[in-house]
């Protein structure tokens, strides 16, 4: 029972309800950091890590807020937790894994304003997930983001060299590409039945 529900959450988060293509969470870094596959994967990994941590921490913060009758402070509390988490991850990486730190560079602080991170924390509360479900949703949601940004960067590296109409150069053609990948991901929506 437990296992099937976790599997359903994971499959949903990675494929059917992909954070990028079905829920539109985290579009800014998705479009901004997807020009090269390496940086895209680095960003995806960092986002997955922060999403997992944020789901775990925000679960307890939410319990605390509810018990204190302060549930309306959710948004403020969550964003502060996420901002400090990102800061903490940044310091930790700088001290212990400096190679990864330099590879991620400016993208790390950007994660604070990634709506996927705040989104996963809010959705966990909205869906009434327990602790394990929240963490699984955070990790798999991040993996979904990773899959999406990896696919997108791979296609985008190719479109760089193709001839596009002048008005469509740069961002518009990227959006059309994303639209086509989203179309492919719509095929997974049949998985929703379980």
């Amino acid at each position, binding site marked *: 029972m437990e296992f099937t529900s976790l599997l359903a959450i994971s499959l949903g988060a990675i494929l059917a309800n992909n954070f990028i293509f079905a829920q539109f969470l985290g579009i800014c870094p998705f479009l901004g950091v997807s020009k090269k596959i390496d940086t895209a994967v680095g960003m995806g990994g960092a986002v997955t890590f922060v999403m997992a941590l944020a789901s775990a921490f925000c679960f307890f913060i939410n319990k605390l807020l509810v018990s204190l009758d302060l549930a309306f402070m*959710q948004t403020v509390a969550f964003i502060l937790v996420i901002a400090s988490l990102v800061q903490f991850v940044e310091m930790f990486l700088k001290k212990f894994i400096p190679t990864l730190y330099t590879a991620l560079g400016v993208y790390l602080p950007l994660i604070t304003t990634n709506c996927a991170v705040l989104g996963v924390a809010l959705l966990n509360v909205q869906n009434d997930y327990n602790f394990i479900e929240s963490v699984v949703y955070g990790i798999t949601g991040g993996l979904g983001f990773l899959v999406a940004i990896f696919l997108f960067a791979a296609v985008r590296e190719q479109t760089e060299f193709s001839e596009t109409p002048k008005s469509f150069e740069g961002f518009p053609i990227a959006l059309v590409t994303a*639209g086509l990948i989203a179309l492919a991901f719509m095929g997974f929506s049949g998985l929703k039945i379980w």
Partner: protein
Amino acid sequence: MNFGKQLKEGLISQNPVLVQLLGMCSTLAITTSFFNGLGMGVSVLVILTLSNIIISLLRKIIPNEVRIACYIVVIAGFVTCVDLILKAFVPALSNSLGVFIPLIVVNCIILGRAEAFASKNGVGAAAVDGICQGIGYTLVLIIMCVFRELLGAGTFGAGLLGGGELGAAPGLRVIPEQFGIKILTMPVGGFLTLGALIAAMQWALTKSKNKKKEAK
């Protein structure tokens, strides 16, 4: 005060969505009906103006090192107010926008304007900037909503017009249902519509630039 110039920047030359490319998530996600677009646009407009005013007032007090954190707290405060107000008075809109109302906190438009404008300018200018950028954002949302709703579902103003309760109204039917391009109301349609809209904007901007060059 140069209201006309700022309005022009907000609407066209520095449009937050089409030129600065900020706030993509909400733009793509909620532009499925006129009702949603208007609600989201006005919410962002109000929050942007208020947070611009407060941040501009506090710009000399906030230490430079922790400014982003301070901005986020100010913005989150206003977002919570708007969220609660909508829940209390327009529950239909609050349900239909769902998680995207609290997510206004991380909408890059608001943080972007706080960092780029409000933290460097006086209160009056910051307030005007908030209003102009908010109008620019709302306008893009409405264009996208009308386009997607009209061609996708074949209606106009679902949830707002056509009788019935707010949020449940069927809207005015313009195109018979079987001719609607369903895909436009799905996520794919959001990407394609926004791509086409930005392309149109780039085309118009380069055209006006070339015209100016020729005139010289």
